């Protein structure tokens, strides 16, 4: 495993606001790393520091093992795709893509070849002579991608690249970016607030909150074993309760079993007495909200996703007021650190 970039004790302080608070992060080569978190968590600031648009207040940044902390963006050879795309409106698509190559004094014939390659890679070879204004949002986003790739960057940086696209195009571009990354073996750092996007695209996910890294790992790691309640909530867990062994634990809504009051699951399972408060029909699933009492005697809200027909199978009535048992198999229980 080789490291493309390292952040060491990096902080960014704006006045009395600490955007990034002493984070340490290694970016692995040829992997797609996502910085994920809610707005204000410091993910974009981290990306901008990596790119050189912001200077860390303290700490250092290494790119390919060399100190780049004070290096201006133009000396870093990182390709950045901006949320707004930032295409040059006075240049054609080809000139936009060739801009970085021109600055690198790549001779014209070679430049044309590489521009064409980059545009072909994003499927826009036929639009080379258009102006950015004449393109759709999705096409502009591909041009921005081609422009960043054309300089053969050491790292490709993507700042919420899909947030301005409609839902269908977004799904398409996720696959496309992933394909390009795997074909070229590029190191990619992607910033997003969309957990689904991060799960689908990443090799490594870095979850951030208030300038700190909360958890780092493969999508599977983070999704199945969230380190704490914040990560669990961000990954879509909604049930939080205490068991006899763990002061804080969680379970995914689809793993919460609903049984008749009095019935229990076999050995080691956690059984909580509960009362249904709300039912919402969602097609395949029915979302069931209930209040239960956990091991510490505290009232907690639970959410279960059950097959529409399972209520009948387990002999309970799916309606508000119905008294049931909410049960969790040991394998489904996710203990959380505080």
């Amino acid at each position, binding site marked *: 495993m080789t490291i493309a970039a390292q952040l060491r004790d990096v902080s960014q302080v704006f006045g009395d606001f600490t955007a990034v608070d002493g984070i340490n992060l290694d970016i692995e080569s040829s992997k797609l790393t996502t910085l994920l978190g809610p707005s204000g968590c410091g993910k974009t600031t981290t990306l901008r520091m990596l790119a050189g648009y*912001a*200077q860390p207040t303290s700490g250092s940044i290494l790119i390919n093992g060399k100190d780049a902390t*004070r290096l*201006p963006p133009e000396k870093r050879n990182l390709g950045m795709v901006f949320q707004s795309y930032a295409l040059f409106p006075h240049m054609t698509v080809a000139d936009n893509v060739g801009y970085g190559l021109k600055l690198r004094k790549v001779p014209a014939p070679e430049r044309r070849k590489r521009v064409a390659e980059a545009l072909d890679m994003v499927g826009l070879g036929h639009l080379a002579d258009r102006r950015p204004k004449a393109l759709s949002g999705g096409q502009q986003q591909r041009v921005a991608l081609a422009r960043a790739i054309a300089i053969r960057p050491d790292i490709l940086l993507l700042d919420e690249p899909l947030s301005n696209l409609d839902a269908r195009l977004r799904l398409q571009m996720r696959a496309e970016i992933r394909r390009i990354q795997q074909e070229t073996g590029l190191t990619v750092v992607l910033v997003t607030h969309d957990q689904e996007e991060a799960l689908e695209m990443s090799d490594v996910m870095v979850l951030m909150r208030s300038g700190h890294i909360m958890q780092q790992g493969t999508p599977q790691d983070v999704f199945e074993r969230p380190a704490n309640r914040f990560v669990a909530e961000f990954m879509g867990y909604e049930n939080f309760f205490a068991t006899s062994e763990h002061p804080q634990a969680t379970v995914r809504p689809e793993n919460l079993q609903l049984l008749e009051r009095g019935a229990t699951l076999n050995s080691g399972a956690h059984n909580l007495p509960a009362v249904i408060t709300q039912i919402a029909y969602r097609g395949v699933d029915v979302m069931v909200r209930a209040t239960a009492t956990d091991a510490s005697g505290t009232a907690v809200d639970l959410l279960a996703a059950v097959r529409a027909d399972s209520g009948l199978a387990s002999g309970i009535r799916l309606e508000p007021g119905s008294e049931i048992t909410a049960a969790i198999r040991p394998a489904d229980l996710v203990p959380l650190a505080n």
Partner: protein
Amino acid sequence: MSIRLAIPKPTMQKTGGRPVLGTLAVIGYVVMIVPILFVVAAAFSGGDSLQFPPENFSLKWFGAAVSYKPFMSALASSAQLAVLATLLALVIGVPAALALQRSNFAGKGWVQGLFLSPLIVPELVVGLALYQQLIAGLGTSTFTALLVGHTALLIPYAVRVTGAALSLADPFVEEAARGLGAGPFKVFTSVTLPLLRPGIVSAALLSFVTSFNNVPLSLLLQGRNFSTLPVSMLDYVQKSYDPMIAAMSTLILAATIVFAFIAERAVGFATIFGGINK
């Protein structure tokens, strides 16, 4: 004041300074501001001619300027002229801006050009033209000729600035008001006019200073007993080299600063001058 502030601002940016741009900027601010500072310094001189350093500190030239009859009557004339010309220009220009923004007809471009043309023709030329046709030709009073000239000069500002305010507004709000039951007059008073208000205030402020400070247009239209303040100040510079003009200038500077604060409070600097360059 803050000339020095021009230096740290650009150079303190994150990754090193921009020495060339910074130097040019400092030169620019020096040229714009330093002469004005020296006018103020000269005004507090106690000597009889412009000299540096001033012989002693005194307020006597302020006293002289305020009690100098030609200046005070010219001040009254200038104020009167500026207010009347501003009002007239708004009365003519605002409806024109409304028609130009909210209707389409053949030759609209030409009509618009005609309304903006006083902005292009050199003011000195307009002054001489009005002198020949109105004062010499029709025998009108100096004030009438000045009022016609200043109004013509200010109409483009009224048309442009209020037009810019109007173009920012959603054209469908008026139709929405009609749909909600407002008659054309009610639409104008309850929707259009409030939308126009910032534009009208900007245009009025801009018009007032433009008229009040004007020299080239007023120059050839001044009469024996009617002169505007800037023109009578120019005449005085020709006659005497004493610091009274510096004192008068300092008073105008102070008044302009007050005016600028009022303008900033009322609509903001940027709004006033934003309209000119649309």
